[in-house]
């Protein structure tokens, strides 16, 4: 039978049990006598062995989840990975968004009309817009090639991942500049 006592006095209980077997309070030292006296007021509750699972499950419901995103160090591995997912989503929104928009509003999203509209804008707006469009496209394309290498087992070491990671970042910078100046 599982004896379930409250607090930390259960240890004291077992101690006093051992000493009381020796027979008579005369054999207990004054210090232990004091302990024994204080444990007289402790009540134990007998529970079946299956109760241990119930107690554990009750405790489990109260347990917090340890922090993750907030505390984990951003590393090239995770940052490039989530970055790839992020720009992929953004580019998809742009692609499908513009396709559907052209479907419903062919007038306003016509190629010639858009080019006419864009040519009237000041230079800094044009360069900014081109950078905002070119950088995600370049990064996603280059990281996609990196992923294809991984799928056939190439560069699948920590060194390889970091080297290709920096290569993708450098390639993105160069490609963006090229695309913006085109």
């Amino acid at each position: 039978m599982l004896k379930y006592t409250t607090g930390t006095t259960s240890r004291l209980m077992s101690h006093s049990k051992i000493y009381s077997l020796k027979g008579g309070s005369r054999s207990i030292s004054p210090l232990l006598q004091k302990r024994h006296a204080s444990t007289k007021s402790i009540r134990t509750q007998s529970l079946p062995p299956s109760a241990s699972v119930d107690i554990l499950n009750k405790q489990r419901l109260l347990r917090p989840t340890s922090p993750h995103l907030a505390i984990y160090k951003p590393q090239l591995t995770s940052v490039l990975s989530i970055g790839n997912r992020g720009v992929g989503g953004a580019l998809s929104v742009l692609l499908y968004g513009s396709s559907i928009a052209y479907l419903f509003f062919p007038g306003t999203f016509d190629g010639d009309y858009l080019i006419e509209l864009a040519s009237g804008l000041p230079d800094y707006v044009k360069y900014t817009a081109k950078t905002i469009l070119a950088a995600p496209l370049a990064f996603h394309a280059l990281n996609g090639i990196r992923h294809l290498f991984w799928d056939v087992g190439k560069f699948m070491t920590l060194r390889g991942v970091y080297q290709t990671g920096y290569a993708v970042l450098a390639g993105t910078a160069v490609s963006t500049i090229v695309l913006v100046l085109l």
Partner: protein
Amino acid sequence: MSLLTRLARPSTSRAFSSSAARALATPVQQKSALNKEFKIYRWNPDEPAKKPTLQSYTVDLNQTGPMILDALIKIKNEMDPTLTFRRSCREGICGSCAMNIDGQNTLACLCRIDRNSSKDTKIYPLPHMYVVKDLVPDLTLFYKQYKSIKPYLQNPTPPEDGKEFLQSPEDRKKLDGMYECILCACCSTSCPSYWWNQDEYLGPATLMQAYRWIADSRDSHTAERKEVLQNEMSLYRCHTIFNCARTCPKGLNPALAIAKIKMELAAD
């Protein structure tokens, strides 16, 4: 000196520890205190309503061993005995002291303390796990997942001479980099995909061990082992984030093992 005083004086000629500092040839210099602040995650299951907090401890690094585990033990011994954490071998082989130190999952006994006293060190339990107490995570699910891949040799036909399953050195080499895993759970708990899909995705540690048995030439149940992974979640939640290999305190590469599983499953 009288006979009595000479007898009363303890023998000083043999014990090294009894040589007084003043008797040494070189002067003994007392190192000045190098105090570093440790901020450690605390949560007490006896007070479950109280939210988890970061508690600050200041440790003199010149009176502590070089590793984070030395600092934790010093705090537990001298400052706060209620600080709770798992530890055993203190040499990086048992995997008990896996925790998140300064944002990265590693073994506390292998992680050197940064001796820059102007910066504090933050110690958290392994990420996205249920906390039993302070730095102790609940690894029950992790062990269940490991058990589910049947991490033992399955070969019902014994060899002809009845002795051992023979294996060539080339076949044995395929297991290098996988058998050394100590199941510390650092890699699985560093994987964001495992954070979000812990109940169905097996995680890098378990998957690397799954491959360890798939690649073992002595095992004959390779087809069954591969079949277990042929679904959307068990293996294919891996998106090659690569946090696992980055954080492994033993320098292993679970991501490569997972890539090899994917290639073998694709060829099926």
